[in-house]
């Protein structure tokens, strides 16, 4: 039907929210939407395996280039997170099953390794024996969790698995003396809140892995093997079947896909990879605590997967790298401050067009800052006598521009709330009013950063993870490297 045949057709009430998909003009513009740049065209010719090998080669040089054990340690953690995101990518990215108990499998793998290779029970198996046992045990656990859940649709699955994750933490945290029906068995299975200490390092054939650098290479090799395995599965019959399950479970079932079996396999496969990551975590840290496997870790892994793009292997690498490195950077106030201002500037440069607007907003913010600083220095001198979070010329400039108070107290907290409200306010405004409102908001952001956020890095990083998830889902739900999908209802 064309427009001319039905001139009186009223618009839908929720017209603006419904994507115009499938209509002729949308299809006609398809080629325009997927137009690639020249560089992108060149790069799209390279098979993705090439990129993965390149990544592996570059990563292998990291410990060679730096002797700094801390950097290598961060690299190891990043590889571990990549492995975790890789496993989650199978369950969530390929099969589309929202598994919120995923981190429990990680914990289960770690605890299994800890129990079989530590003085806890006096068992010291060889690593080559423990790892397969731990991985298979975790896969079986994943199978068992999926068994009652396989009939559940989307959200119900999420809640069952989330509760399973909570259950895991509770049980392992109280595992030093379980009480049941009045019997209190004093079997110390998990060490309770004290965890299991003194875990053996990886050892096989008389050789031991003791250095962080050694673990880095173990993790790199394991990750590359796992990546290759997942890459093959991705292209196999099973991989294609998972994706059809993700796109439309009902249609997949009608096409004769063994939907239940596919779900169980996806769950077990993802769980096995998490268990493998767990064994490495336990071996390097030489101790495991149930609290490490709680919701915050889960959300960080989800943030990685989502940022990179669920269902994309390259996305797993990129997402884990970005999230973990930025979380590490946030630990040191010095680096964090530079990153914060650079990020702010980069966002403004990317989002504000034309450049006149950018100049007005930036200039306005700087001018606004000096004015406020001058007023406050006469009205409330304590707010200009603090010190900036960084040294050098940038720090001294900040001290002369932004407000600093070494003990911001309650006022600082009100400023934080005010900042959140101001950002929400800017989002509702449009046009020039929005640009004008950005000026005080940006200044406020700088003040809140200097006085409140940078002081509490451990909380700030988690707040930022939450914000990343919200913003990313609203702006680009498919992540950096994912492909946009249309859900047909």
């Amino acid at each position, binding site marked *: 039907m064309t427009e001319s045949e039905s001139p009186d057709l009223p618009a839908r*009430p*929720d017209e603006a*929210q419904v994507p115009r998909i499938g209509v002729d003009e949308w299809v006609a513009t398809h080629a325009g939407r997927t137009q690639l740049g020249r560089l992108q065209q060149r790069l799209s010719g390279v098979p993705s395996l090439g990129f993965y090998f390149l990544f592996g080669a570059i990563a292998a040089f990291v410990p060679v280039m730096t002797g700094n054990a801390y950097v290598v340690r961060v690299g190891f953690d990043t590889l571990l997170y990549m492995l975790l995101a890789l496993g989650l990518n199978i369950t969530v990215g390929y099969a589309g099953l929202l598994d919120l108990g995923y981190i429990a499998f990680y914990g289960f793998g770690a605890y299994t390794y800890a129990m079989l290779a530590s003085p806890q029970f006096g068992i010291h198996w060889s690593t080559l024996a423990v790892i397969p046992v731990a991985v298979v045990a975790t896969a079986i656990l994943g199978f068992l969790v999926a068994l009652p859940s396989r009939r559940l649709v989307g959200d119900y699955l999420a809640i069952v698995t989330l509760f399973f994750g909570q259950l895991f933490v509770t049980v392992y945290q109280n595992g030093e003396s379980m009480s*049941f029906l009045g019997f209190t068995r004093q079997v110390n299975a998990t060490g309770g809140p004290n965890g299991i200490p003194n875990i053996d390092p990886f050892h096989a054939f008389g050789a031991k892995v003791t250095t962080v650098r050694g673990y880095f290479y173990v993790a790199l090799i394991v990750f590359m093997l796992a990546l290759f395995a997942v890459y093959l599965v991705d292209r196999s019959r099973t991989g294609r079947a998972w994706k059809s399950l993700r796109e439309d479970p009902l249609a997949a079932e009608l096409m004769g896909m063994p939907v239940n079996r596919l779900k169980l396999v996806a769950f077990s496969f993802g769980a096995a990879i998490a268990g493998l990551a767990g064994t490495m975590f336990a071996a390097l840290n030489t101790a495991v605590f149930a609290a490490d496997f709680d919701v915050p870790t889960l959300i960080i892994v989800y943030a990685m997967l989502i940022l990179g793009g669920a269902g994309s292997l390259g996305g797993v690498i990129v997402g884990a790298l970005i999230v973990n490195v930025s979380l590490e950077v946030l630990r040191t106030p010095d680096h964090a401050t530079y990153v914060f201002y650079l990020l702010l500037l980069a966002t403004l440069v990317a989002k504000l067009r034309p450049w006149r607007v950018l100049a007005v907003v930036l200039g306005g913010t700087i001018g606004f800052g000096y004015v406020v600083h001058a007023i406050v220095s006469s009205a409330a001198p304590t707010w200009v006598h603090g010190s900036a979070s960084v040294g050098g010329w940038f720090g001294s400039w900040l001290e002369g521009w932004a407000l600093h108070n070494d003990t911001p107290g309650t006022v600082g907290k009100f400023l*934080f709330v005010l900042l959140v409200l101001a950002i929400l306010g800017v989002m509702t405004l449009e046009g020039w009013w929005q640009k004008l409102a950005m000026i005080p908001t940006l200044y406020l952001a700088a003040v809140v950063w200097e006085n409140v956020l940078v002081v509490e890095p451990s*909380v700030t990083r988690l*707040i930022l993870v*939450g914000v990343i998830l*919200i913003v990313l889902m609203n702006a680009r739900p498919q992540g950096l490297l994912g492909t946009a999908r249309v*859900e047909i209802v």
Partner: protein
Amino acid sequence: MNWNLFLTELVAGITHGSVYALIALGYSMVYGILKLLNFAHGDVYMVGSFVGFGIISLFGGSENLSVNSWVLLLVMLLCAMLAGGLLGVMIERFAYRRLRTAPRIAPLITALGVAFFLENSAQLLLGAQYQSYNSYGWHGGSLWAEGFTLPSGVHVGMPQIIAVVGAVVLMLGLTGFVQRTQLGKAMRATSFDREAAAMMGIDVDKVIVATFFIGSALAGAAGVFNGLVYQQVWPYMGFQAGLYAFIAAVVGGIGNLPGAVIGGLVIGLAQSFSIGYISSTFSDAIVFAILIAVMILRPSGVLGRAAVQKV
């Protein structure tokens, strides 16, 4: 039979159950209309609880209150409900509204993000330590001295009565609102079929905002009741409570308001009886077992009707 233990656990279960039921109502309403698992709902409850705590501090702290306990309670409830409701509306407006047509996973992850943001912001603003309503100290504990004593010597304090009665009153009010008013009718219609409701001229946006406001206000009230009876408030209290409340909503049949109340009571009683009779460590496991059993035996919940999936 040890009546004392039985009645203690019964009272605790009903009190806990009414708090869960209040939270579950909001979960259920939002899920009914948007099909969205609002993980941030438990954190709205946490904020409500902290608002109540702030009001106590405002009136001189729990040990030397400057007003009558009842006046204080009324102010606390009103403020917590208003704050909870506004917070819920803001969450909807800024985090969920643009995602109504996105793939299902997007709003879910956003909800996790909002929950994470609220919890950690609360920790930044209020500190990680536990705070206490200390309702035993209000005017020398006069509130707890009132109430009645059950046959075997189990004392039911006024705070517990207030929590249960308050929850019942709010639930009745909600039922009346949904059944009798025009907006309530619009809510039911939207929950039944959002597109059809929009075609019938119902302002779906308005309905969704109202749903978030009412559901979140109930969660705020639940926060105050919980603090009144169980004293403690802390930034991470919302996640676990939200989880239990969601299970209550599922057990009762999601989107079904009387079902949410029954589910809340079932979960509250199951939790307190398993703590009393079986093991405090395993109470979570027992709730989990109930959830799995309901999911397998009656996926649509105790009171829910089986949904027909349209293609």
